[in-house]
């Protein structure tokens, strides 16, 4: 089965992440606003929505979330589901929406995430095996796992702290042009990154995503609806998903991620080459994540992500535009909305709505969503025709 050209993103909505959420804001309140904004953006009515994919917020967890949200919004979905693949959930929603549309089950699917940064201490829900075999040793949260990936990557391939820092520096160049970026106030240098506090060796504060509050939504629609949409439709050309571990300790390799099979599937479905891509939006919870993604998605040789980052300008104006919204490192990470920010930015750029950071003549974008510790992976190829 191929999803090539079977559905298109026709509307987006996104909130500027708050470092501290305003009083009285709830995830449901944010989802209301995002739904209204996305419908307006697409030029659709609420009754046009017949599919709902949602990520359960940390700040308002609970079962039967999709039906509750549908009731709050007043929509009657023909398909409703939670997507629970961590940071890859947002990208995972896009191909699931396209699959439901291709199967004739839905015509317009709302993909939505919103959260408040109230995770606090030890509130991250984890499954029992992680509580038993990871937490007692202090393998809690994501920082440690990515630090171990970074150390092993440096050991195997000679990757340097400067090379990792370059990712944060170049993405910030784009963030200062993005009014929605929470950390886009000023440019930073490699020295700034390396002089910021070491949190988990070898990762510095400026290489680690900051939890925020906010959210985003994307409406994916059938070709028939896409024809009458207000915005130019952005077509899903290819999608791939893959996972081979939950805890990084039990991954076959901690430096070679499941991104490779996900990206290979997406590119094969899309029928395009890596060199055809005009911009990439790889998940960037940490700087090392971007280097590993560029390698495993096939944009450079394995182990050469570091030199690649040094040789290319990754900003919107550069020769290899990467995370032109600033990445989550500069945009902020409003829960699962962090992952959605890569999807919305690719769509925005392909629609030609990149404003001060528009990538010239962008028609093809690659997006990667990454869950857990390089665990669940979703690759997307998107096109403006």
């Amino acid at each position, binding site marked *: 089965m191929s999803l090539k050209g079977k559905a298109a993103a026709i509307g987006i909505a996104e909130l500027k992440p708050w470092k501290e959420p305003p009083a009285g804001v709830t995830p449901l309140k944010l989802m209301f606003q995002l739904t209204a904004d996305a419908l307006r953006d697409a030029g659709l009515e609420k009754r046009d929505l017949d599919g709902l994919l949602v990520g359960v917020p940390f700040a308002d967890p609970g079962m039967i979330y999709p039906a509750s949200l549908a009731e709050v919004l007043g929509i009657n979905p023909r398909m409703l589901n939670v997507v629970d693949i961590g940071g890859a959930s947002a990208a995972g929603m896009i191909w699931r929406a396209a699959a439901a549309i291709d199967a004739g089950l839905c015509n317009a699917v709302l993909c939505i995430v919103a959260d408040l940064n109230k995770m606090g*201490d*030890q509130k991250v829900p984890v499954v*029992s*095996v992680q*509580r*038993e*075999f*990871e*937490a*007692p*040793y*202090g*393998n*809690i*949260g994501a*920082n*440690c796992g990515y*630090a*171990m*990936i*970074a*150390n*092993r990557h440096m*050991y195997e391939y000679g990757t340097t702290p400067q090379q990792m820092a370059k990712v944060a520096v170049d993405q910030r160049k784009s963030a200062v042009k993005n009014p929605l970026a929470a950390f886009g106030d000023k440019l930073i240098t490699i020295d700034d990154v390396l002089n910021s*506090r*070491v*949190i*988990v*060796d*070898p990762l510095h504060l400026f290489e680690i995503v900051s939890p925020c509050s906010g959210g985003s939504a994307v409406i994916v629609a059938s070709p028939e609806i896409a024809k009458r949409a207000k915005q130019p439709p952005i077509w899903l050309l290819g999608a791939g998903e893959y996972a081979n571990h939950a*805890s*990084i*300790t*039990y991954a076959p390799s*901690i430096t070679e991620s499941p991104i490779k099979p996900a990206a290979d599937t997406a590119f094969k479905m899309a029928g395009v080459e890596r060199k055809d891509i005009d911009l990439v939006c790889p998940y960037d919870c940490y700087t090392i994540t971007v280097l590993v993604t560029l390698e495993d998605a096939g944009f450079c040789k394995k182990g050469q992500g570091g030199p690649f980052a040094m040789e290319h300008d990754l900003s919107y104006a550069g020769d290899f535009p990467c995370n032109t919204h600033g990445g989550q490192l500069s945009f902020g990470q409003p829960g699962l909305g962090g992952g959605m920010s890569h999807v919305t930015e690719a769509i925005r750029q392909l629609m030609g709505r990149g404003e001060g950071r528009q990538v010239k003549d962008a028609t093809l974008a690659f997006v990667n969503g990454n869950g857990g510790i390089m665990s669940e992976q979703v690759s997307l190829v998107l096109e403006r025709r």
Partner: protein
Amino acid sequence: MMDTYVKPLPKPTETSRPFWDAAKQHRLQLQHCGGCQSFIYYPRDRCPHCLSDQLEWRPVSGKGKVYSYTTVRRASVRSFADKPYVLAIVELNEGVRMTTNIEAPPETVRIGMPVTVLFDDVTPERTLVKFRPTS
């Protein structure tokens, strides 16, 4: 006098109890699959490689190498915030990897470094399986 232990403790299950009970006796044992001859960690009800339920507990060497590690300078949870600690993935000579801690000064830890098991009796009831540099 030792302060009250505030870090998370493992809660053994029917499946994992032999592992933790052995650790309390300062013995390292792992499940071994009679179906495909693999060692298994963490403990399972069936072999994750071949789904066989012919699993038996076998003593292992307690020797391995540091596969990767990090020094956590600022922990993301309060219970680990008392001091920096070395979190590591150790690859045992038997082939399995374990999440663990290396009891050594952080600046001396290296990837590939040979390590030996160390049993840390963190409470009277519970012993964690950690490692130290092989002397």
